């Protein structure tokens, strides 16, 4: 990379940069050579950064008015909604922002799955990403508890009770998590503390995620290694900045629609009823972004095994780079994998749908089949596919055609002209 050649023009800049090379960093970020064929699925990294910053800023301002006490939390949220200047706006951005965050992260993850971005040499980026995803779920769950409505209370009760599935020490752990014999004020205050902390942990991990990304550079839709800087790359600024900006604005239009015209559609009505330890709501359903895992949890008839299955469904992703044995990254050149990829997408959507339905009859049966398929995909199909699949010839570079009259040549050209 050209980082080492960089020297600020002004004397002051040189003086500063010799002591703290911030300008070198800025130069690295703006000049960072990026594959020029990145499509819009690659813009979600920037969108996610926006989501994180938005959640942190709105969260900080909400924390100035929120009271983390079982007797006052619900009332303080109503105070924010009614009396605080723009409080309703800030809270609705924060609440819907969580959903938008997950929407973006799922697209980001599935993009990686399609184009094989998790494969060598990007395993560390991927694993950091999975840790971020886990922390996001923890933050979202604890944030949902804070308004102290019925769903907050019973969601907290159900999720913390998952730990009671652990043999011998389970009950002790649950009591320790609660700080009492039920979800109550001590639980609320510690959840608030952790909810406040986690976004900053995520922020730190995001820095590592991007750092790890900038070592090998971006993957790209063709999935081949590219020379940097070269005709295959463009500088990050302004090419990628403007493209990310455009995608972000499109995303913000959707975001704004939810905030201003359907702010409660992604939430549950029961959470506008203050927490009542004596009455459980008729339907307990987690937020939409947790539904696939909720379906997996419920499809296993054993308490401990259900929890294990749910956790495995997430943790299995961490070892994905070693489960996928194919040397070819992009699904563009893997005709069979491409089909299995779309089956997996459908499978996860079906799991999500089943998570919202009552766990009985046909729903339960479908959820079980979908759960089995989910694990089958990662544990059997992917490893076998790497050895058996006949892949298509891959091009040498983004600008240069495939060797020797490949049938893929025409397709590659069409794709390229579209991208540019």
């Amino acid at each position, binding site marked *: 990379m050209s980082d080492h050649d960089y020297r600020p023009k002004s004397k002051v800049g040189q003086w500063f940069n010799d002591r703290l090379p911030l300008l070198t960093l800025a130069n690295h970020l703006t000049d960072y050579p990026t594959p020029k064929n990145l499509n819009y699925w690659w813009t979600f990294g920037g969108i996610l950064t926006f989501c994180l910053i938005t959640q942190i800023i709105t969260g900080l*301002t909400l924390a100035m008015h929120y009271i983390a006490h079982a007797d006052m939390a619900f009332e303080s949220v109503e105070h924010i909604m009614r009396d605080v200047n*723009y409080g309703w706006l*800030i809270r609705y951005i924060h609440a819907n922002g969580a959903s938008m965050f997950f929407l973006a992260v799922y697209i980001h993850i599935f993009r990686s799955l399609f184009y094989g971005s998790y494969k060598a040499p990007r395993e560390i980026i991927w694993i950091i990403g999975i840790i971020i995803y886990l922390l996001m779920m923890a933050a979202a769950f604890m944030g949902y508890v804070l308004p102290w409505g019925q769903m907050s209370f019973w969601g907290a009760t159900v999720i913390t009770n998952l730990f009671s599935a652990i043999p011998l020490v389970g009950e002790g752990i649950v009591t320790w998590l609660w700080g009492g014999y039920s979800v109550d004020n001590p639980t609320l205050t510690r959840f608030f503390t952790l909810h406040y902390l986690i976004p900053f942990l995520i922020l730190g991990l995001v820095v590592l995620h991007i750092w790890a990304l900038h070592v090998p550079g971006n993957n790209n839709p063709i999935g081949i290694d590219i020379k940097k*800087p*070269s*005709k295959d*790359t463009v500088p990050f600024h302004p090419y990628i900045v403007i493209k990310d900006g455009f995608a972000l604005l499109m995303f913000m239009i959707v975001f704004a629609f939810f905030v201003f015209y359907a702010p409660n559609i992604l939430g549950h009505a029961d959470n506008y009823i203050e927490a009542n330890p004596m009455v459980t709501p008729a339907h307990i359903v987690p937020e939409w972004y947790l539904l696939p895992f909720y379906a997996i949890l419920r499809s296993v008839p054993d308490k401990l095994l259900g929890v294990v299955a749910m956790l495995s469904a997430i943790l299995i992703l961490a070892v994905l780079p070693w489960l996928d044995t194919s040397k070819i990254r992009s699904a563009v050149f893997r005709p069979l994998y491409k089909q299995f990829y779309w089956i997996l997408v459908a499978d996860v959507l079906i799991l999500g749908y089943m998570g919202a339905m009552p766990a009985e009859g046909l729903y339960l049966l479908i959820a079980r089949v979908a759960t089995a398929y989910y694990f089958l995909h990662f544990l059997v199909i992917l490893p076998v596919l790497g050895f058996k699949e006949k892949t298509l010839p891959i091009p040498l570079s983004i600008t240069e055609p495939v060797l020797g009259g490949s049938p893929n040549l025409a397709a590659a050209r069409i794709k390229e002209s579209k991208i540019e």
Partner: protein
Amino acid sequence: MNSYINYFKSKRDNNKSYFKCLKKKTKRRDFLFTATTAVGAVGAAAAVWPMVDQMNPDASVKALASTEVDVSSLKPGNTITVLWRGKPVFIRRRTKEEIDEARSVKMEDLIHPEKDEDRAKNPEWLVMLGVCTHLGCVPLNDKGDYKGWFCPCHGSHYDTSGRIRKGPAPLNMEVPKYEFVNANTIKIG
């Protein structure tokens, strides 16, 4: 062999210079980019405002405008302190001597000239915010060189009309808006 290596070298340089040329061209500015940046900046500024304004007093705080105080039990020479908008308000029923002293002071002797007649419409009653105008401490009653109030924080002396006479405070203690609802009740705010 040599020519082969040269071919790749020249190709690499070609690649690099192409990348450099992409960077250079970005320096150009035109109307479209200026307009885009300007519109974007306006939106960003508008988005910042709610985050700033949320720290201003909210609707419920603004609504707590007035407090009513029953002063029927107050004897001459006594002071009560009541809370109004989170600040102490001194209500003093002044003695004859205190009134005379407050009203006999010459304007040129005052740091912040104000007539006692303007500060206490009903001479017997002095109502003012018990907050030192220096840095906001609460002055002590019946203390100081002028028999009024004395602020222990930095040594400001106030007279029997609550006017600053000596010390670092720049202004007299503030008289809030108040009225007598009836003979026994003062409404502040």
